């Protein structure tokens, strides 16, 4: 995804950061959840404790009430000493710290048959002193008619049974809102004779319950479920004071199953209700706003998360900073330096830390130095190689036409080298006045050794061709030389053609080279069918087969190296011999200078953009001389002379030669025929071969025999100014030949004497 180390490292750092953050988030979530549960539990616990204390208060009040009832019962039974009872009650209430007051109240006429009401009531006054209040016995008050009395006495069903009044406001004395617990006083015969009461000031309860405020906006409800009245409510959304003693239906959020509810919604806030049932049927509900309950936890978790996030950001930044300082910056520096070095600037690199990079930098520095020296060395080698390449290229003839005055033939050659100094070469030269040699060759291997070897081969061919060898001797001599100087085991494939430009007689030698193509008057280009010899440089004593043939005007020989046929395209397929042949046959331009270009273009189209891997070398030879040729071959004996001169005359007549020329030809031919017949073979008998050619402007006669090597041209001319008496009879003939022929030459090629005479045939 990211290709550069900087981004990769950033990605690592960022992913670490995100991983850390995710872990933190999960941790915070779990922590918060646990904290919430813990908080709920802990509040539940503290509220339970609180509720228990309220319950204890209730129980204590109920116990007090029972104590009082017991006392009332004793008072009734034990003689009804009012003084003792009053002081006892006063004493009792000094211990009952959380109650407002209380007393014992008897049913009408129970204590005294004349007195309807009898009660003893003590209360805690403003000075926190317990005093008796006698006013409750009054007619006006008439406690038997008070709601609390009636409620309690009607609720009591048996001994030790404590009942609670509804909240009421005492209109006598303190005028405080209170509720009263009462226990029945029974006589020995089990008759309910009165009640004891203990007053619990609602305001006190309210104050007590208001203490239980776990959070700022939590509120409580203290009520009696069985009798369906509200005792205390500090619900901030309700008019609490008016609710005292009212039905629970006035509390909108209240439901029976509130104990099972985790939270409820009230005034768009979530409240958690803690419901605690008391022993006397009352219950206490503390409603805690969920938000407030968890606010602190949330704040804590948030702060913790922020701190952890900050720490992880810091770690990420530190990591990034460290990476940047110790890895990315040195890498950047190295890159920058490398870039500068690649541009050829002379720079040194120093990195102090970390050690690895310091070491890398010094290695880099050393490498830079090494590269510089290597580059310098390589540049030197390259420049030398390019010089070598240009020397090599310039050693091949490159000016075409090379012999503008020779109309007998055209030659064109080209080498398009591959990158390296290659081993392909071509060459051509005149061996003598009329024999023209051309060759194309491919040295095995590439590079400098191949190039040097190529130069050797080329020079050898060139030099040795000037020695009067036959083609066979030439190639065998060159092979021997190559073998003797070739220690590297290199070899060369070569195709050589030697053409007599006058007669069109051609000799081919193919030394393991690609078969050339030839186009003749009668056919399109086709591959030659020459038996291939062994490559040059393989065996010193190798024998080479030569082929002789005749070229006619217009015949074209196309020679090439394997770089042409083995050129590869994108699919790794070779250009091939068929494609080459087709290309040549499609191309109808008679100017051979264009053939090589056409082939090159065809190859280029075939290979498209695949780089050239081997030299593309071609040499094209076209024979132009309109030679007509006749051959006479027979035993060199006098008896055959007649048939010889008949053959000669027939040729002359066929070609319409003029009498003067015919006469000259006649004389010369007779002389040369006689020479071979009388001097070359005797006492043995051998063959004579005469080639007679008519080209555009010449008549050429070539006499060949395999007799004693003899050059008649070396014979001294007779002195024709001498008087006839002193003149010799012999020597006239060759003198006449020399006189008459426009050109004459002798060669001893192989084991053959070759004498060529040429006559101009201007008027033809």
């Amino acid at each position, binding site marked *: 995804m990211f290709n550069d180390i900087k981004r990769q490292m950033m990605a690592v750092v960022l992913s670490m950061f995100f991983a850390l953050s995710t872990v933190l988030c999960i941790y915070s979530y779990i922590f918060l959840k646990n904290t919430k549960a813990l908080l709920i539990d802990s509040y539940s616990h503290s509220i339970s404790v609180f509720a228990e204390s309220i319950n204890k208060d209730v129980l204590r009040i109920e116990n007090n009430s029972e104590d009082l009832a017991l006392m009332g019962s004793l008072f009734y039974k034990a003689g009804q000493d009012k003084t003792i009872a009053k002081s006892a009650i006063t004493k009792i209430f000094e211990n009952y710290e959380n109650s407002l007051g209380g007393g014992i109240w008897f049913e009408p006429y129970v204590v005294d048959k004349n007195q309807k009401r009898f009660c003893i009531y003590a209360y805690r006054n403003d000075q926190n002193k317990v005093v008796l209040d006698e006013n409750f016995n009054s007619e006006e008050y008439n406690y038997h008619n008070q709601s609390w009395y009636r409620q309690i006495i009607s609720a009591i069903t048996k001994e030790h049974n404590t009942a609670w009044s509804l909240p009421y406001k005492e209109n006598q004395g303190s005028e405080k809102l209170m509720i009263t617990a009462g226990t029945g006083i029974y006589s020995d015969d089990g008759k309910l004779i009165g009640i004891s009461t203990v007053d619990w000031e609602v305001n006190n309860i309210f104050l007590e319950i208001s203490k239980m405020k776990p959070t700022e906006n939590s509120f409580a409800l203290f009520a009696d479920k069985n009798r369906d009245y509200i005792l205390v409510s500090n619900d901030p959304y309700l008019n609490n004071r008016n609710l005292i003693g009212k039905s629970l239906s006035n509390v909108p959020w209240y439901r029976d199953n509130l104990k099972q509810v985790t939270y409820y919604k009230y005034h768009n806030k979530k409240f958690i209700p803690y419901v605690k049932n008391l022993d006397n049927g009352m219950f206490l509900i503390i409603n805690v706003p969920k938000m407030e309950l968890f606010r602190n936890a949330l704040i804590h978790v948030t702060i913790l998360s922020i701190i952890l996030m900050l720490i992880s950001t810091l770690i990420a930044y530190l990591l990034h900073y460290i990476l940047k300082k110790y890895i990315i910056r040195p890498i950047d520096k190295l890159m920058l330096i490398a870039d500068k070095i690649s541009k050829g600037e002379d720079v040194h690199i120093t990195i102090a830390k970390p050690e690895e990079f310091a070491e890398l930098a010094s290695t880099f520095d050393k490498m830079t130095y090494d590269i510089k020296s290597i580059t310098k060395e390589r540049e030197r080698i390259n420049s030398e190689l390019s010089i070598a390449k240009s020397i090599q290229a310039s050693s091949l003839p490159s000016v075409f036409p090379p012999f503008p005055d020779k109309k007998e033939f055209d030659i064109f050659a080209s080498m398009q080298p591959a990158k390296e100094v290659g081993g392909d070469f071509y060459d051509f030269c005149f061996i003598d006045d009329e024999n023209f040699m051309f060759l194309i060759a491919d040295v095995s291997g590439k590079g400098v050794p191949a190039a040097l070897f190529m130069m050797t081969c080329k020079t050898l061919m060139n030099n040795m061709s000037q020695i009067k060898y036959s083609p066979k001797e030439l190639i065998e001599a060159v092979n021997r030389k190559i073998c003797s100087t070739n220690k590297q085991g290199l070899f060369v494939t070569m195709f050589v053609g030697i053409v007599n430009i006058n007669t069109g007689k051609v000799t081919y030698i193919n030394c393991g080279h690609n078969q050339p193509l030839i186009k003749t008057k009668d056919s399109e280009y086709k591959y030659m069918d020459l038996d291939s010899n062994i490559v040059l440089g393989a065996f010193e004593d190798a024998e080479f087969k030569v082929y002789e043939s005749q070229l006619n005007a217009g015949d074209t020989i196309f020679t090439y190296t394997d770089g042409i046929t083995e050129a590869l395209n994108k699919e790794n397929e070779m250009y091939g011999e068929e494609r080459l042949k087709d290309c040549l046959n499609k191309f109808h331009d008679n100017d051979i200078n264009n053939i090589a270009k056409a082939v090159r273009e065809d190859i280029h189209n075939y290979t498209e953009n695949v780089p050239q891997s081997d030299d593309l070398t071609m040499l094209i030879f076209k024979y132009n001389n309109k030679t007509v040729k006749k051959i006479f071959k027979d035993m060199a004996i*006098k008896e055959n*002379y*007649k048939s010889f*001169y008949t053959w000669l005359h027939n040729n002359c007549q066929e070609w319409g030669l003029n*009498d*003067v020329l015919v*006469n000259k030809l*006649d*004389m010369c031919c*007779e*002389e040369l*025929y*006689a020479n071979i017949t009388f001097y070359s073979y005797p006492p043995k008998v051998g063959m004579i071969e005469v080639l007679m050619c008519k080209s555009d402007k010449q008549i050429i006669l070539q006499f060949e025999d395999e007799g004693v090597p003899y050059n008649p041209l070396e014979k001294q001319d007779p002195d*024709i*100014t001498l*008087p*006839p*008496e002193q*003149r010799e*009879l*012999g020597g*006239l*003939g060759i*003198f*006449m030949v020399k*006189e*008459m022929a426009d050109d004459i030459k002798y060669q001893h090629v192989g084991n053959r004497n070759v004498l060529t005479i040429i006559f101009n045939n201007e008027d033809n």
Partner: protein
Amino acid sequence: MQILIKNFGVNGLYVKAGGRLDLDSAVEYGTSIKDAIYDAQEDIKEVILDFSEVTFISSFGLKVILELYKELKASDGTLKLTKVPEQIQASFKMVGFDKFLTIE
């Protein structure tokens, strides 16, 4: 080659040959004339070679002529050539025979 040899006068010999005077025929030609000279009853002092029918002379023919000339000269005879076609005259000239041969 056809050779016609006639004697004329007392010591004259008239030779008329037709065709080519070359490798093939020169020896025969020379021999025929020499035989005629030897066979004659009188010394032959004058030989006339009629070249009107000769189409070609080669070095062999020339050699025969030179040989004949030398022999006649030695016996104070003369050699005359008559009706020599131009081409053949050119051949004589080439080898310098025109300087001593009497060509009519």
